[in-house]
């Protein structure tokens, strides 16, 4: 959602030569009893980024966020923010604020008092506090709600109050724990864009935790995918989708077909891989040559697979199959096609015109094909 004209920070600071990371997470480890919640994680986040920690439940993303907030102490590793080591600072001395998953609004205070809470701790002058609170409520479009109590607000309004409260102290870093998790789907999509808009306007670095890959893709400049306490890949949403580093990332981000096989031939930058389940050899593009016999997984996204009534003559990779499942989703239809050797391939057809309804039905026979560079060859 980057809108270059409004951005204050460079669009891709991690690619700028000589750019210094704003936040450095260095070899942070945190154990709870025997389990590693965060296992030797290192990452660098740049000024003005909207950085997401994405992963399933129990992957350590929330613990990492709480370590950044100072609510958990890491067993090992350092946190450096803007050149200052903040690892040992208590939460109330960090220039960092957090928006809690439950919002954690103080039920005994009204909206304005909630937003002003952090400012009172700084012993800011009363008039100044009032101005800042008004500006914050304006920012989240809750100007007339200052005297309401949290329990008199809707879920979406509470979420905005929590955001305003966390932003009021103008932190160097804003941490958001599942910021949209409690909202319903429609509101969530709308709020995603609002959140990005606010972040671009004020230019504060955001780090958000989410289990929702769509949310991470929509909002983030970069996403760190986490699994079992480790960061598996850090990349832009597009890179994550098209160039996943391994099977986990490929499977976690979007839908994907994973074909297991072995390298049977090497042809320059291409390789031929043999897949039992698909029943044949397939040509795939892969930059680095791999030795013959290497076990590999080919990841092909459903929308990259083409469908034909008869065997396509102009495509290298084609398989014959039969429709076993159909799901009509409005904008697209999802088909599950069982190939002759048993592999089920998921394909996606976009409905581009209102009257061109997909004409495949259950048990219809068809041909699937993809180009050598439509899939990714994964070795891990």
């Amino acid at each position, binding site marked *: 959602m980057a809108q270059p004209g409004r951005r204050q920070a460079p669009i891709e600071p991690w690619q700028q030569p000589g750019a210094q990371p704003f936040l450095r997470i260095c070899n942070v480890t945190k154990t709870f009893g025997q389990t590693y919640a965060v296992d030797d994680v290192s990452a660098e986040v740049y000024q003005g980024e909207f950085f997401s920690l994405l992963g399933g439940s129990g992957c350590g993303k929330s613990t990492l966020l709480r370590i950044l907030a100072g609510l958990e102490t890491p067993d090992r590793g350092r946190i450096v923010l803007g050149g200052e080591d903040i690892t040992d600072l208590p*939460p109330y001395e960090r220039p960092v604020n*957090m928006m*809690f998953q439950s919002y954690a609004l103080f039920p005994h205070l009204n909206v304005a008092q909630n937003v002003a809470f952090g400012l009172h701790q700084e012993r800011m002058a009363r008039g100044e506090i009032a101005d800042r609170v008004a500006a914050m409520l304006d920012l989240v479009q809750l100007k007339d709600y200052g*005297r309401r109590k949290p329990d008199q607000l809707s879920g979406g309004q509470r979420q905005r109050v929590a955001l305003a409260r966390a932003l009021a102290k103008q932190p160097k870093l804003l941490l958001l724990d599942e910021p949209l998790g409690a909202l319903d789907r429609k509101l969530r999509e709308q709020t995603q864009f609002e959140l990005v808009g606010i972040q671009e306007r004020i230019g504060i670095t955001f780090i958000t935790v989410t289990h929702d890959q769509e949310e991470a893709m929509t909002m983030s400049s970069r996403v760190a995918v986490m699994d079992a306490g480790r960061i598996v890949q850090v990349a832009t949403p597009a890179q994550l989708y098209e160039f996943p580093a391994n099977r986990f990332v490929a499977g976690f981000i979007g839908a994907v077909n994973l074909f297991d096989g072995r390298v049977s031939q090497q042809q320059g930058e291409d390789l031929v891989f043999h897949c039992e389940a698909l029943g044949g050899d397939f040509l795939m593009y892969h930059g680095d040559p791999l030795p013959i016999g290497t076990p590999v997984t080919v990841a092909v996204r459903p929308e990259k697979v083409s469908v034909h009534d008869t065997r396509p003559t102009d495509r290298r990779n084609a398989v014959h199959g039969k429709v076993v499942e159909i799901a009509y989703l409005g904008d697209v239809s999802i088909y599950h096609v069982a190939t002759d050797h048993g592999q089920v391939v998921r394909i996606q057809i976009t409905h581009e015109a209102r009257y061109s309804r997909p004409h495949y039905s259950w048990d219809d026979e068809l041909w699937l094909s993809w180009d050598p560079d439509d899939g990714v060859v994964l070795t891990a």
Partner: protein
Amino acid sequence: MNGSGFNWLGFWNLVFSALVQRIGVLGRELRQRRGRLVVAGIPMLWLGLFFLLPFLIVARISLTTIDPNAQPPYSSIVTFTQGWQLELHFNLDNYRRLWQDGLYLSAYLNSLKTAAISTLLCLMIGFPMALGIARASTRWRLPLLTMVIVPFWTSFLIRIYAWIGLLKDQGPLNNLLLWLGVIDEPLHILYTNTAVYIGIVYSYLPFMVLPLTATLLKHDRSLLEAAFDLGCKPMRAFWRVTFPLALPGVIAGSLLVFIPAVGEFVIPDLLGGPDSLMIGRVLWTEFFQSRDWPLASAVAMAILLLIVIPTLLFEHLQARRGAQEARR
């Protein structure tokens, strides 16, 4: 005596027929809304039988005159004269005596003061205890709560007697302090106000700790974390978040301690000295030693009003504040 003026027989006839009609209406309503009435009715019946009825009986006795020859020893209020007339004899002298005799007033004030100080002490000791229990791991919480409740398994009277032994001049407390060298001669605690405070705080502490623990257990831990995150040091976070949110528990606990402490008579009787005259003890004396039931009932009514009126006022204010905030 009759024939002149009012037809009392006709009057009672009218009253009874109106009553019968009213009961008929009630019966119809009862059939229509049986479920709701049963649900609301059981607690109402309970309160009526065990609270309202005794209250009315005491209220009635407080308006009678002492009559040592009667059994029970007070005159009756209602008498039927010949000709079906009702005669009511109200005696307000008991209440007048309460006001005029300085003994009762000073006992009231002393009770209020003792109850208030005891409540504050209970709060100061009970809050850290409740916080500790609420923050303890689930494994420890139940044992800790049990320890708060366990004293109830022993008779209250026996526990107060035990304090006599503990507090007396040659008791374990004084011996310990002497042995430690904190004091040179035994402290005279027993039969003083201090002993009364110790006894009341000891006896009523669970009533403070339990509602406080219940309130604190409901707290969302992330609220405290949010306070830290927004720049509160631990002590400040306590006063700005934990304590205000625990106010319902503080109020409940304080009422549970204050109300019985005002009427307490066993503890001042057993542990207190001659100067710790509390209204509960006065009530006891009037009832069982002077056998002046009407005066004792008047004392009881006065205690009740003294406690109920501030409580109701407080609740009313709370409700109005709640309504005001809801309107904004």
